[in-house]
């Protein structure tokens, strides 16, 4: 996995900070424990001094721990704030979205994602977006809770029935990014995957137009069949 959006860049940085913090915790506790067990494990016989610690050392240790926690808190708030900012659309992106992000509706349903584009075209499973363009996904669900998760492009978010959740990202490179639903949603949860295809703005516009035309033709064909009294 590699970050391909400004938001996931920030998440990746904070992940490393978190990893360092966690490593400090593990090394301090496990290392300290192993050290005292080795150092004093061989003592025999003598009754040890009945040492206890006073309030002073507890306050100092507590203050050090508090400072550690406060540092992590500040860093987390800084990077989380940056990670959830709506990115700007760049020069290579879709110019129509330069002022407001391209809004696409992502609907979770058992066990497929449906994407509705601004021009009323829609697609299942595969989302096509222009490169270097701010995209805002409105996540909704028609049945149970689903989690939309394409880790290279954005942090994961739940689609909860009755609520709308938001994901923003701006892909920095053309290509295909894979994702998988991340909340148990029933029998076919594991194969409920998705794919984001990042293309040039021209190809994006061609795709949504072609998709719209295809959908329209298919609907017309069905309507025509019904009007002729045939079963579609």
């Amino acid at each position, binding site marked *: 996995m590699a970050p391909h959006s400004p938001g996931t860049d920030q998440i990746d940085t904070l992940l490393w900070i978190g990893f360092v913090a966690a490593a400090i915790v593990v090394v301090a506790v496990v290392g300290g424990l192993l050290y005292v067990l080795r150092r004093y494990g061989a003592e025999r016989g003598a009754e040890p001094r009945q040492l*206890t610690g006073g309030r002073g050392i507890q306050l100092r240790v507590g203050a050090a721990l508090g400072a*550690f926690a406060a540092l992590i808190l500040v860093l987390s708030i800084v990077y989380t704030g940056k990670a959830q900012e709506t990115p700007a659309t760049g020069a290579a992106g879709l110019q129509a979205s330069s002022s407001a992000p391209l809004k696409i509706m992502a609907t979770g349903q058992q066990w497929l994602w449906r994407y509705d584009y601004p021009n009323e075209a829609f697609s299942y499973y595969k989302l096509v977006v222009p490169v270097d363009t701010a995209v805002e996904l409105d996540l909704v669900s028609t049945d149970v809770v689903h989690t939309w998760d394409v880790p290279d492009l954005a942090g994961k978010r739940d689609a909860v029935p009755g609520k709308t959740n938001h994901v923003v990202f701006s892909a920095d490179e053309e290509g295909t990014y894979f994702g998988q639903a991340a909340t*148990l949603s029933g029998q076919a949860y594991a194969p409920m995957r998705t794919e984001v295809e990042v293309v040039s703005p021209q190809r994006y516009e061609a795709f949504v137009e072609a998709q719209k035309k295809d959908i329209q033709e298919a609907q017309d064909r069905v309507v025509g069949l019904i009007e002729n009294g045939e079963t579609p």
Partner: protein
Amino acid sequence: MSAPTANPELVVDGFPSRRPRWVEIATSADHKDVGRLLITGALGFLFIAMVELLLMRLQLAVPENGFLSPVTFNRMLSLYGATAIFLFALPLALGFFYYVAPLQIGARGTALPRLGQLGAWLFVAGATVLYAGFLFTPTEAGINPFAPLSSLAFLPNNGVDAWAAAAGLATLGFVLVSIDLVATLRRRRAPGMAWRRLPVFSWAAAICSWLLLVIGPVMLAAITMLLIDRNFEGIFLAGDAGGSPLLWQHLSWIFFTGAYMLILIFALGAIAEIVPTFSRKPLFNRGAVIGSLVAIAVLGTLAWMQNMFTAPIALGWMYFAMIMSLALIVPFGLVFFNLIATLAGGTISMRAPLLFAAAAIAAISIGLAAELEHSMVAVGWRLQHTTDSTAATHFALVGGAVFGGFAALHWWFPKMTGRTMGETLARFSFWTMLLGTLLAFVPLALAGTYDGQVVDAYKFFDGTGVNAYNLIATIGAFVLAAGILMTLVNAILSRESGAPAGPDAWGADSLEWFALSPPEPHNFDVLPDVRSARPLRDIREAIARRGGAGERPRARESQPVA
């Protein structure tokens, strides 16, 4: 009652029972019988949870495996979650509290014994209901059955109802046991047993009981809503009719997060009894440890929304949860610091309880370090719902309930049975479990962090880079299970054939070791007069001063006037 061989001066303690042993146990309201019922039941369900985990790991050993069908996998997953939390970890912790705390405070029994008995039997009823689900269809809704997947529209069979009834009965039982514990710790302390002298494990019992009085009813409310929604056309958890699926998430996470803290507080409380004894030093700072355990219960439960970073809630709520989670660094850090400082400078004897306690500290610290990452909001967006969260939870809870629980089991086994658990098998079990835990959960953490493998999925796909991780995790789960099985076998065998233990098996400081092993129904013939936080040590010293140097106190000896 077994004959008190160590004390030949008193031969007859009661009338020989005319009823079979199982009738005695089933009808007894003695806190020791009820506690043993809870502990034995919990260890039995540990075995069952382990079997379910192994079946799931077998399915996930290789990509796109067809060993279990998706429905069977989801059933195993749901049963595993309910069994591990409601039928293993919580009753184990409460069973030890209920057995040990009245002894530690020098009580002759609990304040409301029938209430505790009813609680334990409600746990048995809950377990029966959950597994009776096999007669029709067990639940498929997952470890935490989120609405609306748990609603009638998506799971129309009665599995979810069985889950709800089982979890509800067990939770109600735990609340009743907690009420008895709160009342007992309030009213039945021996003369001189002030709160400041209460052993840390009894403090843990008090904290956890109060915690259950808060979180238990929250879960019962959530379960009631779920049952009304499913059976009486309620709309509490429906997304489109005036309720909200998020309501279930809030209420259930308050309970599960509180229960998580409860299990850790139980383990740390037991470890705080074990570590001082085996390093022959008092706890480095009792007050700081006790205060930290209180803070863990409060802050930890308030951090429930840490589980909802991906849900549609405002960023401010996520920051609130993060502040509470990160604040936990201080109390957990102080507890770890004081435990290690107690060992430092001591004369350490590495007996089985201390081995398990040390592994519990290490595993809990690894799990909490991972949870620390998950509580950083943006990192949570990346790591939550991946197998890294599975690994974090399992490090902390296997550390707390299994390693910590086994430390408590080895430690109090002599008190409960009069015999010590075999040390050699304990060591084999320990090293196997340690290896198994690392093999089972480190690869899952890596798969979740670097390849984003998602939780609860019945299969994973080839080419996603997680094949090796999952195969190693499966092997590790089997190694861990083998280690756990060794301790369960050790416990069963040692009941009959373990080395006989005296009343004071380890040279500890608290009053449960003043009673016989196993204690008589009334616990103590003579109530000791407590003068410090280490009452049994005072008694030993007083005896030494009287000339009986080196002699262990006899159980029936009243405390000599110092």
